[in-house]
């Protein structure tokens, strides 16, 4: 599953290591062209799709929502719940992952259960969460935390278990205590995998937050989307859809930047700069 997250479409066309530093005027032109064509199609009723808003209408709606509407509050709510839930999931996932990765007995007596439970996508638990927690913030938070734990847990376990045996032997030879071994050898060695898990988890947390807001917790961007839907205001809907996408991009970029600052260059070879 890892490759999907690490690739970008521009990057996939093989521009090499400098692509991030070069601006992409052609790409920008294409986006503007598409927006212009879209605008024309709607304005002159060439495309007769009922309820399709023109880009200009979306811009207007965005202005209205941000200035006069509840957009900012909803944005803060979604981002807040996502980051909080992800943070808790990260702590639990890494902690449990270290335990299971380092302790063969614990691994042997639990891994299959985790594999089976993981196969059931967190989204399918939304109805159960609704039944148990009702329409509440708790429901959203529980769902986000539950979903976020899995990628972090699985990737942490994988990272710990793939540490070269020589490194573990070095720790033994130097007679390092267990906390020292974890701090000096296990965590740094597993860090690239852990970071991949954290990135996947963050994306998943955001998606679950939005879904929960759409069906259970009347707050946040998801709720904005549904209320616009119910009012049959497509331009407003588009604003919220794009906002959700934008939040995902920004959060992901933020995490990637943090990871690059914290991780030493050599160890980052597994996480290609996308």
């Amino acid at each position, binding site marked *: *599953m890892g*490759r*999907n997250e690490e*690739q*970008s*479409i*521009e990057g*996939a*066309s*093989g*521009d090499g290591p400098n692509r991030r530093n070069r601006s*992409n005027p*052609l*790409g*920008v*032109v*294409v*986006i503007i062209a*598409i927006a212009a064509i879209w605008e024309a199609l709607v304005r002159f009723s060439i495309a007769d799709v*009922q309820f*399709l808003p023109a880009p200009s209408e979306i811009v207007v709606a965005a202005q209205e929502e941000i200035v006069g509407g509840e957009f900012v509050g909803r944005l803060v709510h979604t981002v807040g719940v996502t980051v909080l839930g992800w943070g808790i999931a990260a702590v639990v996932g890494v902690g449990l992952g270290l335990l299971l990765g380092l302790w063969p007995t614990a*691994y*042997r*007596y*639990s*891994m*299959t*259960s*985790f*594999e*089976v*439970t993981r*196969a*059931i*996508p967190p*989204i*399918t638990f*939304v*109805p*159960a969460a609704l*039944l148990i927690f009702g329409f509440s913030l708790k429901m959203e938070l529980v769902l986000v935390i539950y979903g976020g734990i899995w990628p972090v847990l699985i990737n942490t376990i994988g990272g710990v278990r793939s540490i070269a045996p020589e490194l573990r032997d070095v720790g033994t030879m130097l007679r390092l205590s267990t906390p020292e071994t974890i701090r000096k050898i296990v965590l740094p060695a597993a860090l690239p995998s852990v970071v991949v898990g954290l990135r996947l988890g963050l994306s998943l947390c*955001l*998606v679950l937050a*939005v*879904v929960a807001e*759409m*069906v259970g917790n009347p707050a946040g961007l*998801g709720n904005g*989307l*549904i209320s616009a*839907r119910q009012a*049959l205001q*497509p331009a407003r*809907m*588009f604003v*919220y*859809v794009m906002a*959700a*996408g934008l939040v*995902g991009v920004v959060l992901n970029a933020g995490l990637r930047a943090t990871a690059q600052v914290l991780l030493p260059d050599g160890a980052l070879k597994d996480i290609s700069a996308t």
Partner: protein
Amino acid sequence: MTQRLRLDSLTGLLPLVLLLSVWQLIGDPDSPFFPAPSSWWPALFTLGQGDKIIPAILDTVRTFGLGLLGASILGVALGLSIGVSRAVGRAVGPTFEFARALPPAAIVPVATLLLGFDETMKVVVVVLAAVWPILLNTSSGVQELNPVLLDTARSIRLSRMRTLFAVLLPSVMPAIVLGVRVATPIALVITLLVEYLTAVNGVGALVGEAQRTFQPARVYALIVIAGLLSLVVNACVRSVENAVQRRRVGDS
């Protein structure tokens, strides 16, 4: 070695078995939150709703299948175009990145507004969600193509069509298959999600209905069915992948 692995797999089930057993012991079949596992299966058939199950499963599988198929065709076509030409890749890159960032769940209300509540809408949403892994893997598969192969085709003076079908596609096949494998669970999850959110048809719709009518045992039972579907679908894709791999034994 296999014997030991199997034993490890079984012992690993301990927490799950324990959880279900404890749940069974202290669970009350009438609990609004945690009905005991033994009450799940019968709940599928209460109120004469039993005969809705199989059609729902078929509906889900149909949407999933069509969505995955559409995503594959679209993903391969787009992936090939992007992979072959750097200019095309850079041109459409930002547009596609933008589209990829939109969460499928958020797209659903828009889709129902524009397309209505029917099978087409479901399939469109699934395609929009599942196309990306296939697209990305295909285009990078093309990127990593052995240039000697293309030179060989040119020196034999193969036509563009023949080059595409006889050389390009077979070499990119493992990457495509990988992309499809990654896309498969996504397609299934999004199918269930769309069904849950829109109640058009399928297992997801049944879960939504059971939840809104406060039938927790039925909800859990349907969740289990969704999980089993997921396992079966993934196993199928993996065996297809293995079949494709085996035909290429000895390849690079």
